């Protein structure tokens, strides 16, 4: 536990070198990834509706693609 501050600092400075780091998928290779069909929540009004439908009828909650809260659904 005493080594944690050192570990954090080393990791931070290692990661801070990322600005000069070469990504393995170049920006010009991301055409497919940026296609709207690759975003399952591309229509936010539908994504939040589906989230609401399931969350009001299930005990499980959280870690979805939509932030919850305020639905008044007890």
């Amino acid at each position, binding site marked *: 536990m005493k080594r944690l501050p050192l570990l954090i600092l080393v990791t931070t400075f290692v990661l801070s070198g990322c600005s000069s*780091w070469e*990504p393995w*998928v170049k920006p010009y290779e991301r055409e*497919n990834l940026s296609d709207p069909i690759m975003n*399952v929540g591309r229509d936010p009004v539908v994504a939040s509706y589906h989230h609401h439908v399931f969350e009001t009828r299930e005990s*499980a909650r*959280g870690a979805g693609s939509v*932030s919850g809260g305020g639905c*008044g659904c007890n």
Partner: protein
Amino acid sequence: MRYPAYILFYLLSLLTFMQQVTAAVLPDERADVMLHSYEGGELTVSGPAVLLRKNIGTSTSVFYNTYTDNITSASIDVQISGSPYEEARTEQTLGVDYLTGKTTLSFSYTDSTENDYEASTITVGLSQDFFGDLSTLTMGFSQGNDTISARTGNDPLEFEARSSIVRSNYRVGFTQILTKNATLGFGFETITDEGTSAPGQSTTLNNPYRQYSFRLSGSPDIRSYAFELYPNTRTSNALSLRGNYFLPWKGAIHYEYRTFQDSWGIRANNIGLTYVQPISHFVFELRYRVYSQTQADFYRDLFDFEGQFTFMARDKELSTYSSTAVGFGISYEFAKNGWGWIDKGSLNFSYDLISFEYDNFRDATENVGGVPAGTESFYAFDADVMQAFISIWY
């Protein structure tokens, strides 16, 4: 410094050092108008929803969302311990996203109003791209304050306060670009609820109208009912894994797995698979989702006698059950090359069939017809869920 302070220091350090050249982007400027409908288990919920999003300058995006549920319920819950009712719930959200370098800061406020339930929620979030935009780290916090009330007697317009709830959500997510065609993401969220009863009331986190069932003293084949008693706190953790894959013929597969557990003893899992296929001006979508959960520690379909335990509940949402959802969506894109001030638009229809099957929640209405308590058939129902909406980008 204590341990959480190290984590905060670490995250701030990452944000400080990882400001890079390429910028992330703001969400699309668009307007969506939707009509939605849910019909199942003698419960109908329908209404409109509107979402507007507009940029201010080059780094700020604001949005407004209004959503209404018009509810008509004669569900099995109100058949047993209540009477059929109609009510409306209106939810409004105002939010802003601010983009600086590779960091997006988000803030929103949501207000939900119905005659016996008020809820307000503040959400703050942060999204940071790094590793040459191959990775995205998200963090968020929400604080909700709910006020629950209930009808007093037969007057449909008279309510009294029953309890208040403070909800806190803490979430973190990480998304990674794996290849030119695949991404993978993880999400984790902890939620805590703390309920406080109004003076002289026993409601905490429960619906004040719901009742548990017990064998009537002297007539064990007959169900009797009393108001539920819940713990006043609940803490849950959920961990999700989701991925997207771009298919060689320009289609996409999305998959999701989530595991869940809470302090009430509930364990749940769900998996989902979505296939998206554009063809000319159309986009078709097929969806499949399976969900299952175990019961809460204090749930029973039928207690042996009144006041058997400190906490007692008979909500079907707390029972052991599973559900399967199968659905499709169709979108027609118009004005793809722009039309006046419109960049493009789409007409959309979506349908899901959700089948619920309960393993230890019985159809207690059969007991009224003479079936001995505890031997009624297990409850099951199907729900039809539809949305029709138009979207315009500008």
